């Protein structure tokens, strides 16, 4: 292929000599090194102590109620029944129906925390509107410091946005 003599095109002087260098430079510009080091750390001895922690959690999670001999069960049941009879007999007229307010707040919170809802907080707010009374009640109730700290730790960005020092 003696192209040199067949076409009228020319290249700048030294073009092919420097082509490779130019190409490699272009490629390295294009290629960004993605860091591969592990920036994530774990507390000291975390993995060493993990088995022990897991075993403890597992035993709490799968605690089996021991079986008592049947006679013992009957005796206990009879005593409980007798006590219950006396107690409820005494309280008979005072027994009220269980209603929503009897649920412990922690149970309700745990339910909301552990149950998957297909509702956003806005959608929940639409079906559970605040009444004026509840709203003023919420404003007048003192808020525990613990709850405030929990809120701030979950929403630390919002907290920083307040920029307290600059606005003082």
């Amino acid at each position, binding site marked *: 292929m003696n192209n040199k003599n067949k076409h009228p095109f020319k290249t700048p002087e030294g073009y092919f000599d420097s082509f490779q260098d130019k190409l490699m430079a272009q490629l390295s510009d294009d*290629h*960004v090194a*993605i*860091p*591969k*080091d*592990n*920036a*994530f*750390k*774990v*507390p000291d001895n*975390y*993995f060493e102590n*993990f*088995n022990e*922690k*897991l075993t403890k*959690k*597992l035993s709490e*999670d*799968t605690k089996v109620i021991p079986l008592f001999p049947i006679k013992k069960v009957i005796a206990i049941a009879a005593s409980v029944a007798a006590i219950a009879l006396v107690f409820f007999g005494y309280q008979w007229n005072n027994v009220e129906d269980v209603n929503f307010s009897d649920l412990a707040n922690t149970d309700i919170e745990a339910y*909301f*925390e552990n149950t*998957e*809802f297909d509702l*956003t*907080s*806005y959608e929940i707010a639409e079906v559970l509107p605040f009444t004026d009374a509840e709203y003023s009640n919420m404003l007048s109730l003192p808020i525990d410091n613990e709850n405030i700290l929990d809120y701030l730790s*979950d*929403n*630390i*960005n919002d907290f920083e946005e307040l920029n307290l020092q600059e606005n003082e």
Partner: protein
Amino acid sequence: MMNKPQEPLIAEETLVQELKTQNTQAKAFEVLVSTYKERLYWQIRGIVLNHDDADDVLQNTFIKIYKNIDGFKGDSQLFSWMYRIATNEALSFIKQRAKIQGLNDVDYQEKLVANLQSDVYFEGDEIQLKLQKAIATLPEKQKLVFNMKYFQELKYEQISEILETSVGGLKASYHLAVKKVEQFLKED
């Protein structure tokens, strides 16, 4: 960064049998946890980013494995099955957290990365932080593939078994993810 290529380290078939047999179960579970805790931890940490959350999810993962070992059919490798449980647990964890805080997935991811700046267990420099921001912008599948391939150096065949996706699809996802991450890192 996180782990070397993943090969099953123990004779899985024997271990599964021991896990399903009552008198060998406790010992076998101990071996299982010791062998896989670090690998599963890094898989989870790559998704939830925060150590305490990763610890919670890791414990729940092993509890789920312990309770469901009888249901392990052996259709896939034990470690792929465990990786799948760990991945699903971590993904549900962050989805649940996002929902509780009334954020969509993207906003929640951004928040997780922003929290890294004050995380005592994150010692990354600016470029590391930017890398995490870049990963946070990836769609879920690309994010998983990127973490598993780039950091944990899993083989495509292994990722395919864990995520139940074709190797071809994974290669495409990984390629796209790398391009996006590079592009993000190039931007100021």
